């Protein structure tokens, strides 16, 4: 369907899941053979760094750099944790990937563990992804039977065990330290950093936490090399492909693997098949619910980490949610804030109570009871919540509010002046 290079979705067929045989048929586990037989852990880490792979879980931190912080030669148990607690509105790419081709993640986990010299791996999977967890468990069994998991893998002397852990599930578990607490069976509040997980992570031991898509990319980098991976992107400083999960007012709301740096217009028009019912594009969330809105004037922005940061938004998870011109952006933002306020863990004040206050302000404005003071308070809340909470949840939650105030302040003013929602008939 797509003309762009397909790595992660190479084996994706509607309604099908590829397991060991199908995966091997298209070159599966060759990266693993290559890594274990021809490369040292050090070389692997350098390769990932050279490929400039950036974390696919939302923050976009360079994976190779993250791995350099990891004390891979420290004695004692060390952990590799895969974060599959995908739960942000508009983001569903990891679920799609695991429905299609779970072995990619398993192979990625094994070679990443080898690169980091971690002897135990956990895949922490969202409660609702029961089917995907089932696929993963089967893939782990198959990989174990094939000798890719266990003692002395391919005669390398390296041992690795891999567990699939079903989460009880809340949005906050996507925060890596909250995830570690959850994995330990504790209340999933985020942890104080430092110490960072690389120093004291799971059960107090060195730990690296990476997203599903990030880890699934590793075998492809090993097979294709860093140069090839860099060249996949359309922007000079980008690298690789990205899974874009489309949603909202589009004619086609599916998940596509597209090159990093693809312009927004192309995504909306070529892949989303244009705005639903021929309405006009008004805005979109470019990377999940926690990223500030883009508007029609951003149609030519390249969807990449740096280009989106330059226009005041974020690449996030590349979950693109489109809103047409009939949409009330106050209502959209309120809807999103309701989600985030509900998903706050309750640990720090700006998130627990600040988001409650923001939700109330948006409710007042949305219901037509807002006053100019409420608008000023909303701006003031944004200033005092963003970047001032314990973890990144509240900052992400305020992303849409920031976008609302930057691009759609007039809509707020209209609500206040009309005393009702201008979009409501």
């Amino acid at each position: 369907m797509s003309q762009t290079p397909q790595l992660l979705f190479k084996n994706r067929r509607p309604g099908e899941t590829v397991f060991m045989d199908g995966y091997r048929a298209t070159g599966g586990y060759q990266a693993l053979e290559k890594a274990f037989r021809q490369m040292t852990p050090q070389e692997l880490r350098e390769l990932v760094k050279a490929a400039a792979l950036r974390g696919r879980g939302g923050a976009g931190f360079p994976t190779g750099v993250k791995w350099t912080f990891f004390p891979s030669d420290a004695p004692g148990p060390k952990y590799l944790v895969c974060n599959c607690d995908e739960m942000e509105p508009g983001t569903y790419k990891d679920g799609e990937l695991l429905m299609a081709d779970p072995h990619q993640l398993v192979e990625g986990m094994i070679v990443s563990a080898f690169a980091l010299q971690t002897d135990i791996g956990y895949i922490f999977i969202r409660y609702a992804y029961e089917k995907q967890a089932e696929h993963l468990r089967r893939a782990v069994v198959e990989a174990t039977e094939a000798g890719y998991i266990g003692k002395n893998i391919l005669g390398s002397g390296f041992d690795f065990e891999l567990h699939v852990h079903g989460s009880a599930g809340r949005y906050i578990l996507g925060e890596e330290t909250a995830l570690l607490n959850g994995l330990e069976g504790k209340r999933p509040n985020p942890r104080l950093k430092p110490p960072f997980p690389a120093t004291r992570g799971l059960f107090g031991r060195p730990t690296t936490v990476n997203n599903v898509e990030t880890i699934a990319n590793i075998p492809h980098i090993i097979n294709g090399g860093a140069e090839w991976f860099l060249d996949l992107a359309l922007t000079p400083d980008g690298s690789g492909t990205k899974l874009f999960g489309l949603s909202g007012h589009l004619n086609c709301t599916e998940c596509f693997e597209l090159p990093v740096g693809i312009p927004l217009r192309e995504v909306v028009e070529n892949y989303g098949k244009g705005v639903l019912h021929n309405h006009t594009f008004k805005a979109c969330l470019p990377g999940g619910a926690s990223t500030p809105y883009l508007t029609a004037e951003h149609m030519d922005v390249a969807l990449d980490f740096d280009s989106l940061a330059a226009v005041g938004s974020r690449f996030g998870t590349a979950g693109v949610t489109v809103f047409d011109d009939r949409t009330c952006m106050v209502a959209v933002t309120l809807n999103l804030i309701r989600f985030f306020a509900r998903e706050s863990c309750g640990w720090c004040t700006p998130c627990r109570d600040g988001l409650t206050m923001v939700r109330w302000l948006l409710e007042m404005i949305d219901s037509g009871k807002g006053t100019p003071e409420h608008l000023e308070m909303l701006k003031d809340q944004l200033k005092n919540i963003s970047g001032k909470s314990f973890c990144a949840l509240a900052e992400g939650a305020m992303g849409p509010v920031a976008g609302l105030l930057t691009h759609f302040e007039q809509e707020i003013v209209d609500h206040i002046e009309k005393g009702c929602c201008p979009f409501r008939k």
Partner: protein
Amino acid sequence: MPTLTIDNQKITVPEGKTVLEAAEELGIQVPHFCYHKELGAVGACRMCAVTVQEGSSKGLKMSCLIPAEDGMVVTTDDEQSTTFRDRVGEWLMLNHPHDCPVCDEGGECQLQEMTIASGHGVRRYAGQKRTYNNQDLGPFVAQEMNRCIQCYRCVRTYQDYCGGRDFGVMGSRNRVFFGRFQDGTLESDFSGNIVDVCPTGVLTDKTYRFKSRYWDLQEAPSVCPHCSLGCATIPGGRFHELQRVRSGENQLVNGFFICDRGRFGSGYVNHPERPRQARNNEQLIGMDEALRQLDVEARGLIEQHGPEAVLLLGSERTSLEANWLLQQWAKKLGCREPVLAAHGPRHQAAQVVAFDLSDRLASLEQVRGSDLVLVAGADPLAEAPMLAVALRQVVRSGGQVIVYDPRPVELPCEFDHQALSPLALLDFLTAGGSDGQHVRELLQHAESPILVGGADLLGVEGLQRLKKMSLELSNDQRPCLIYPLLSNPNSFGAALLSLPEQDDLLTRLETGRVKMLVCLESDPLLEAPESDRFSVALTKLDKLVVLDYLPTPLSVHANLFIPTRTPVESDGTFINNEGRLRSYAGVLEPGLPISVAEDGGHPPREFSTVSPGSDPLSASRILQILLKDDSSLVELHQQMVADFPRLAGLTGLTPSDAGVRVADAAARNVVNIDLPEQPVGTLQLIVSPARYGSDLLSRYSDKLEPRFSSAWVMMNSQDAAERGLQEGDKVILDTETGSFCLPMICHPQLAAGCALVENSAALASLVPGAGISYCEVSREVSHE
């Protein structure tokens, strides 16, 4: 040592101090909630925000989390910081019910203070407030969750620090709930601490509810009299009533927290039957008259019958000063030296601690910092509850706790337990086979090992063996210190003042030469073993004089009774289990608590310049009157130091001090104790203190009654099976003290070959610390 600038003031602080702590040293109060000196910083409330102008990470930061750096420039009063703190104040108050007028915390509420300090004044949020249903958390702690500002201090105290498991945080977002899974009494023995740490009125002292405003309370630094640890407390009284006790801070001893026995065990002060007037047999007399009679009669008897005629008995719960003055009075009267403790074996064990171990004692702070603690013959939750919390800190910081004790010991942390009978425990301390070797090796390799020893179970012999072990395990790099547990708040003090190897109370009484016995805050009927022998000896006396503040059974028999003051009504000093002088200040004047008249009573028709029940004088004051001595407390301390140079630390000691150690003593000769042979077929009898109601003060504290245990005898499941007994059976326990019909309970973790009973009001005649003895348990034969 970094030097930094906070609000244009320079300060140099030790490495690792946070900006919040540095500011505090400068006298700059940065508002905060979740930070607590003992619990540390967690960065949850976001109230302590300041702006770092110069430093490795600039901008708005939480001052509790950032370490002070050299050259750092911080402002706390810039626009960004003050606005942010104002907003945090506003957020925290979104749901608060503003019910200060009916809230017990009013006046000592950190939320009131910090909200004002944050600058938040006018509510802008007009949405719905979140409300909760409250839980019944039992008799000690009242919950009012609507006031909660989610600082998490309660769960960090209850669960993390004290190891309680039935109180925690539930729910998420702005609906987090701090409580139990369902209504019910808090199970932890340290539950009251959540009252102290709660910065607002969510968790308040139920026993003090609606009694006083904080500013109306009289408070003073004091020492807890409920066990030998000497924890810092701050009792609060009003209208002659001791209304509450909260924990004081003493980093060398308890840190910030105290146990529930110490906090809620203060009812003895207001006990309805507390004797408040002197009497000669049945007749009430004035204090002056009572003291005159005592003086005249004591002198008369000595003149007539010689120095043996009057026997003065001091006490392990009376102050150091009173015990010393008792000795001075004896000298003045010309009678033999006083006996300072009714319980002979306990007193001898305390002497081993006060003399032979005095150069190798650890503080509770050192216990908390240890990496390996061996607990031998001690049940911390019963004998010294705050030790249990200290042991938890050992485990929390990666250390290990090993318990060798016959009882099924519980601790609020993970530990290894070996159930050895008392005799086997003594063997373990000397050699102990491969197991003993293994533990010795672990201790040998530990960085700061500590041996905890319970004097009650180990006795003189065990403590001496513990000392030998400590000597063997010490090396040039580090000592292996001992942390002994004694039975009473001033056991150490009474032992230090006593002459070694004097005859004990019963031996002296049974000579028949004693005509008058003066018991100073001591009741051998309750506090010593062999109460039968003592009862018989009493009949040979011409005169029994009792001075006490408790309505003890002995006070009923007294020919002359003189009321004394409790520790909260007097100034004095105790010496705790590790030889630390701990001074306390009086909080209240004694008197009948003033209360609203019931049944529509009338205001008093009689008026008097003295308040009813204000007769009692402190034991030291009484003795000073008898000695015609007008010395101030400071002068008294000078005389005591001159008499006992080990007490040099008394000079300049005040109740707010952490307290200094008494000087080391030269070790005495080791005395070999002959242990009684075990008759065939018998069990070793273990008499343990109960957690509540074993020490006399808690026994007279009504607030603790819900926690008092019933009487039972416990056996190892296998021993019970061998005797054909089942849990719940009524059995006869035959001991040297007598026979008791008790229900039997089984426990797999009780050492084999032992029978365990708890000393409490329900089983008062079996007293702990009486040494090795044997018993038999058999099925009750019904006589029908």
